[in-house]
């Protein structure tokens, strides 16, 4: 069913892309994992696309296909888009990684930009934001604010990106509140408001009074507001759904990166790169802190944010042990990007197992 939907959408993108060939603008395509109206991850990427369109005007033509499932379907949709004559394709989900690499081999003249992955090629760049920097800041706030010492965490898929987020938030929360405990639920979806709401309800039932999410819809925020607990938004500012509940939100800002890459494509200066930007360059930002937060908590969070931005502090600074107690980082040692990019273990203190 989704298959047919994406095929239809792909055919539509094809039609759109070939419609205005006369002026020969630079063509940029986007593949989204959720609907652009998810008000989270895909919504934020689409804001980036709109920023590109606005910045370049008629010189650039953008198209997109939304709700493309990860896996075999993705490869076909990306192939269709590449065949339709676009010059650059942004594939905006981790699960598109192999599909992107495969299609890129077939279309050496199309430039590919894959979000949050780790495989590159001559015509494939990767880009991601250091969301764990944001997770560190919200972890500090969570550790200070929780009264039940229980933080509920709605996780999507057991991939390095998500595991890193859990570890970063946990370490920060633990540093200010040694009693804190994280309860993690894996929902195995990026977008399913019903499921996300169910997970939030179950976490609250089991004692969590702060909810963090690594899924894309504002469902958990809505439930948190309804049940009177605190929560952090994801990808986008979700304050509309939880004016009281939302303490802050980690926001993704893709606009500058997308504009810079499209510019490079037009100039011919595009080369394959691996970008991983954080709070410093502005790829990771925060929604306004909730006014109910005590001033000292806000001050602490802001100090951490600024120190990370300035590069004087790293969320993964030793001593840190792995979950099984074996040492990972010695005192003062900072995690290298390679380990972070492929992180597949919990740090000491996080309970439960990572599903295989």
């Amino acid at each position: 069913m989704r298959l047919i939907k994406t095929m239809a959408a792909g055919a539509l993108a094809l039609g759109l892309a070939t419609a205005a060939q006369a002026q020969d603008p630079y063509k940029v395509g986007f593949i989204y994992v959720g609907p652009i109206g998810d008000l989270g991850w895909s919504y934020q990427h689409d804001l980036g696309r709109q920023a590109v369109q606005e910045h370049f005007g008629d010189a650039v033509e953008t198209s997109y296909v939304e709700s493309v499932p990860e896996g075999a379907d993705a490869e076909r949709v990306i192939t269709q888009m590449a065949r339709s004559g676009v010059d650059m394709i942004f594939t905006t989900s981790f699960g598109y990684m192999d599909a992107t690499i495969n299609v890129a081999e077939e279309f050496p003249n199309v430039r590919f930009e894959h979000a949050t992955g780790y495989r590159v090629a001559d015509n494939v760049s990767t880009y991601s934001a250091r969301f764990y920097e944001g997770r560190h800041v919200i972890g500090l706030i969570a550790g200070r604010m929780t009264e039940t010492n229980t933080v509920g965490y709605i996780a999507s898929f057991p991939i390095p990106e998500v595991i890193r987020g859990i570890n970063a938030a946990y370490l920060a929360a633990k540093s200010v509140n040694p009693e804190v405990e994280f309860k993690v639920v894996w929902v195995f979806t990026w977008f399913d408001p019903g499921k996300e709401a169910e997970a939030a309800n179950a976490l609250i039932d089991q004692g969590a009074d702060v909810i963090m999410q690594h899924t894309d819809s504002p469902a958990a925020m809505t439930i948190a507001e309804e049940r009177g607990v605190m929560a952090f938004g994801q990808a986008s500012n979700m304050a509309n759904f939880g004016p009281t509940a939302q303490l802050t939100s980690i926001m993704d800002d893709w606009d500058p990166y997308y504009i810079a890459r499209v510019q490079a494509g037009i100039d011919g200066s595009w080369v394959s790169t691996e970008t991983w930007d954080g709070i410093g360059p502005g790829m990771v930002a925060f929604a306004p802190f909730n006014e109910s937060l005590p001033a000292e908590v806000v001050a602490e969070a802001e100090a951490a944010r600024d120190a990370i931005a300035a590069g004087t502090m790293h969320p993964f600074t030793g001593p840190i042990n792995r979950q099984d107690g074996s040492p990972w980082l010695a005192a003062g040692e900072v995690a290298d990007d390679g380990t972070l990019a492929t992180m597949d273990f919990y740090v000491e203190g996080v309970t439960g197992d990572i599903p295989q």
Partner: protein
Amino acid sequence: MDFSSIDPISLIVSLMIAATPILLAGLGELVVEKSGVLNLGVEGMMIIGAIAGFAMAVETENPYLGMLAAMGAGAVLALLFGILTQFLLSNQVATGLALTLFGLGLAALLGHSYTGIKPPSVDKLNISFLTDIPVLGRILFNHDAVVYFSIFMVFVLWWFLNRSRAGLVLRAVGESHDAAHSLGYNVLLIRMLAIMFGGAMAGLGGAYFSLIRVPQWTEGMTAGAGWIALALVVFSSWKPGRLLIGAYLFGGISVLEINLQIVGVGISPAYLKMTPYLVTIIVLVIMSSDRRRASLNAPASLGRSFHASH
């Protein structure tokens, strides 16, 4: 591992909430299929119900008017399906799939200005002396009206299909439309009414998502619930009582799976997530292994177009 942190009462309450939308949509589709029509557009009708119900509830600040609007919108979409398949004799499978695509797209379009809004809340039943009964009070007497309506409809439909003349006529149309036609029953009218009833129930199921279960509007928020409802109809072998059990089983597994994870049971959530689908497949296999039993339950004219000239 500490199971004491799981509260069985909250578990039952949340499984009922998880099950209600698929139960409603499943009951509607059950009647449609009993009349011999296969409408695969349940997902599309649900999502249209979700946005129509949400929009009406927000505009009038009355969730119940929203639910009526959702039922109306679902029925209108179903009417479209009915005209195409019953009068223009289009293929039911293809038309149903198209209906889902159309519904998802139209809902996204209509819902554009409704994102980020809070709908009016729906009251839960709260009768002090009943709701305060320990354990049973919260399980039985502390729900929103739609939960009770869905259970009520299970009984109504059981009675309708097995005990009422109209229900028997509907089943006759589903078993052999030619025979029903030769007896003088208006096959198309009966099927159109069944199709619209199915649409209304799916629409209400959709509104349950946007008004009660998640209370918000987001594109594609039904996320496959319509397909689960379709599977449940087969799982229940077209019996309302079994559909109720199936829906609660499905809701129960999906809620329990989350709770077990939080407690830290070492079963991979992937397995638990597969269970409802596995059970459906197993039921299908068992049903199809015995031709007689299967033919007793599945409407014989399911999915076949009717044209009076032959």
